[in-house]
């Protein structure tokens, strides 16, 4: 679905990504982890068109999109959930959803397409916040809104740039579950994370980016089996405590039918970041 081949990208002061090759299949989660400055966000921005590649290819469904403008890449089926959420502070949740919903854009072939109703079924918390402006939402709610905004563009590829950043552990777990659910709908998910724990729990494949180069790219099962190697690459101590299996999404909704969960437990207080 998404393929980067020997992708190079950077800024005026130098190249950040060096020949990055990744394959993200439909219905799978490719995690890319790395330390600060490794080039993770540059990778996401290059795929989304916000940073112009200086070499290599980016293919979405076999169509080369590298070098296109961001709006054209979005229309090619790429949705972005940026680092820091970047929701529109002056727009209400309802306006975000209305703006992002593009009924004339074709849904994923074979898929039923994302509608506002379906989004609110998946993320019922947003339904209770429809009249609230972006800057009046908690961090978790903003993250949900950023994901909803991206989904309503009917993407086939979803780019998630550190979606758990700044969230309380219970909210981060919900975001991870949501990522698994979305991959279950057939989306190709490129998940960029600094925290290896967030990536390992939900990914099908894990790559490590170091100084803009892919130095490790294995199925998640293999990565889980060699925590010491990941720890060495990322210089983290907690890798030894990585979960052995990917948890079954269950907190919010059934991953197949995306029905409303019996209880989300997302109270106002619980949802606020201290």
């Amino acid at each position, binding site marked *: 679905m998404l393929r980067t081949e020997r992708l190079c990208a950077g800024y005026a002061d130098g190249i950040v990504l060096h020949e990055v090759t990744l394959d993200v299949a439909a219905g799978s989660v490719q995690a890319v982890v790395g330390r600060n400055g490794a080039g993770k966000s540059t990778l996401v921005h290059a795929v989304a068109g916000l940073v112009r590649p200086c070499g290599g290819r980016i293919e979405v469904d076999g169509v080369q999109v590298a070098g296109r403008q961001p*709006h054209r890449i979005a229309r090619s089926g790429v949705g972005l959930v940026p680092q820091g959420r970047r929701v*529109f502070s002056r727009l209400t949740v309802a306006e975000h959803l209305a703006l992002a919903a593009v009924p004339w854009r074709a849904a994923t072939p074979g898929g039923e397409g994302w509608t506002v109703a379906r989004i609110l079924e998946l993320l019922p918390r947003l339904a209770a916040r429809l009249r609230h402006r972006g800057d009046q939402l908690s961090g978790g709610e903003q993250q949900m809104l950023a994901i909803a905004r991206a989904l309503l563009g009917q993407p086939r590829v979803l780019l998630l740039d550190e979606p758990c950043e700044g969230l309380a552990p219970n909210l981060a777990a919900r975001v991870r579950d949501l990522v698994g659910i979305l991959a279950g709908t057939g989306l190709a998910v490129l998940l960029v994370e600094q925290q290896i724990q967030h990536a390992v729990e939900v990914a099908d494949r894990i790559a490590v980016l170091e100084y803009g180069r892919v130095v490790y790219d294995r199925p998640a099962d293999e990565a889980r089996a060699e925590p010491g190697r990941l720890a060495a690459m990322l210089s983290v101590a907690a890798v030894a405590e990585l979960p052995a299996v990917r948890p079954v999404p269950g907190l919010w909704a059934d991953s197949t039918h995306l029905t409303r969960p019996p209880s989300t437990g997302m109270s106002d207080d619980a949802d606020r970041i201290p």
Partner: protein
Amino acid sequence: MAVDTRIDPYLVPALDGVAYGLLVFVAAAGLVLCFGVAGILNLAHGTLYAIGGYTAAALLDGGWSSLLLALAVGTVAATAAGALVAGLLTRVAARSHLTQALLTFGLALVGGSLLVAAFGPDDPPVRVPAALDGSVAVAGHRYAAYRLVFIVVAAVLAGLLHVAVRRTRAGMLVRAAVDDAEMVAVLGVNPAWIRLGVLAAAGALAGAAGVLGAPIIGPGPDTADAVLLLSLVVVVLGGLGSMGGTLLAALAVGQIQTLGVALAPSAAPFLLFAAMAAVLAVRARGLATARRAS
């Protein structure tokens, strides 16, 4: 009818201030959209108003039909000029404001010279519809009928602008782009079309203001500069991208320019800029600027 003579000297200037302020609002709203949404400092904005003003002077003959014709022609001409500015700015849209300012300042000079060449170096007279070319009684005072009607029309225009910005998809796009134009692009919306639309709409507003406001701020060689200066003051005072702040600032400018001058005539030359400096000293980001989402 008994009239409190203590407010006599100030009632008419205050009413004039409302008319003046609403005129400045309609003229400046486009500049706020340009700067707030497209990030473009369009120094040719005053020229767009002047196009409307000269159109009014050329077409108004004292009849209602000529007013409607002038409004249509002036608005369309200024819209086209706004779109032309957008087209010429395409290659420098991402550059610094200095580059944009130099280009649009050049366009303003060219536009001003063309208007003077076409209409002459003198301020042309503007005829309002005969039915409005008199005065009416307001709280025991005589007040120009055209200005009173203008207040109503400008208030309706401001209301329509508010509805367009708050209730339409285009308005949502504009507000979203004020916040984060890059995120609007990744939603699949071409930012160049937003820029074109905003600059054309800014031209339409300025052109309409120029036609309707010609009897208040009339066309002439200095009109473009005067309107641009007032609009810039309103942009600075109101805060970027805030229509509520723009309206507040425009009404304040109107009162300062009329009531303020009536109250303190000796301070007239610098009253407006003293007020601007005072507001900025207290609220550096303008009267009403929304905070970004953290």
